[in-house]
């Protein structure tokens, strides 16, 4: 947890390692995370889950019930959704 803003953070996730490897600017990492959130929301549209990117902690998952969950990276998104009882889509099927 950041001692200044109190936000949760677990450091770079796998997908961000790709962005970090070429030492891109932070705004560009956030741009990449936002684009990932858009793609996640598209995949999860049937479940009515909306995802947004946040620079400090990764992703914010807004569930159809109104609940909100944070996820530190892409892999964590799927785990958190499954733990919340949301059916995780299968890219081989959809």
């Amino acid at each position, binding site marked *: 947890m950041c001692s200044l803003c109190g936000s949760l953070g677990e450091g770079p996730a*796998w997908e961000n390692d790709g962005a970090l*490897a070429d030492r891109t600017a932070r705004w560009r990492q956030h741009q*990449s995370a936002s*684009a990932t959130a858009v*793609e996640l929301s598209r*995949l999860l549209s049937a479940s009515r889950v909306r995802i947004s990117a946040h620079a400090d902690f990764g992703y914010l998952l807004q569930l159809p019930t109104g609940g909100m969950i944070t996820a530190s990276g*892409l892999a964590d998104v799927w785990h958190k959704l499954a733990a919340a009882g949301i059916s995780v889509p*299968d*890219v*081989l099927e959809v």
Partner: protein
Amino acid sequence: MSTIPFHLVTGFLGSGKTTLVNALMTAGFGAGTVVIVNEFGEIGLDQDFIQAAAEEVLVLKNGCMCCLVREDLVATLLKIGAMGSSARVERVVIETSGIADPLPILQTLRSDFSLRVRYHPGAVLCTVDARTPPFGLYATPESRAQVSAADALVLTKTDLVPADKAEDLQILLMAANPDCTILPADSSAIAAFLLASETSARSRFPIDLARRSISASHSSDVRSAIVRDAEPRSWPVFATWLSNLLYVHGDRILRTKAILFDRSRDAWIGVHGVRRFLHPPVHLDFDSPPEGTDCIVFIVQGIDPARIVESYRRHVAHQNPRNAEPAALATMVSERTFQ
């Protein structure tokens, strides 16, 4: 902050893991190396066989590292990491128990943030007893997991079997894990392999899976799918698709390897995964990759590779496959069966 490489030495019970680690330590690989040994039983013996040539030998007892004593492993690695440069720790070698699945250990080391900033993955070595009968490779889930997770397979006890039998086993191993390197039980060759894996993740590239021609007399049900000219629409689209694919089907996708062009960063990126474990993506320093290597290769078992390729085309491919010419699509997709 520079990170410490860690290597896993795995292999089934009695396949020669401790002998291999011992040989590496006495052959000059021991300086700056901390060895962590996991023994399943309550009374550990393996550490007594590893000579004092290693910087330090630590033992994790009372359970298998992949399921019961992972927290002990994390605590031990944090202690080693905290010693920092004063302890001159240059690498960590983890010898798993004979019944451990290496993947949960790798995932722990990558998913724990406090470890991720201190350590980076080196290589996974798997020892295989040359006397193993063909069915023995697939006899238990643990042995299958160990062979499929390995970056290099070390054939041990070859002096106890005829040369042709050892060669047959090598062919079977290549069929079970087409992405691996098969090394002789020679400590200098193994040490060189480990050192190369420490210094650069680029040693895993370029991929040559797409070019390999493999045949084996024993059907392993291991198949591959190759997506050629696999330029994704964007990195976020590819990363989202791959993470979902591995989350849902990771148990059956033994390997993922890719060289992709990321147009948003105007760079080539290498991706390497073992089941659900993904190594950090690597930025590759070339204007264009060697001919035929810009592709994605999936090694799968028990899943139709064509479904993966079709899904890639549907979700990720830059070209809209519905508008593409049939001939162009045919060059995107090829499939090979390792049997």
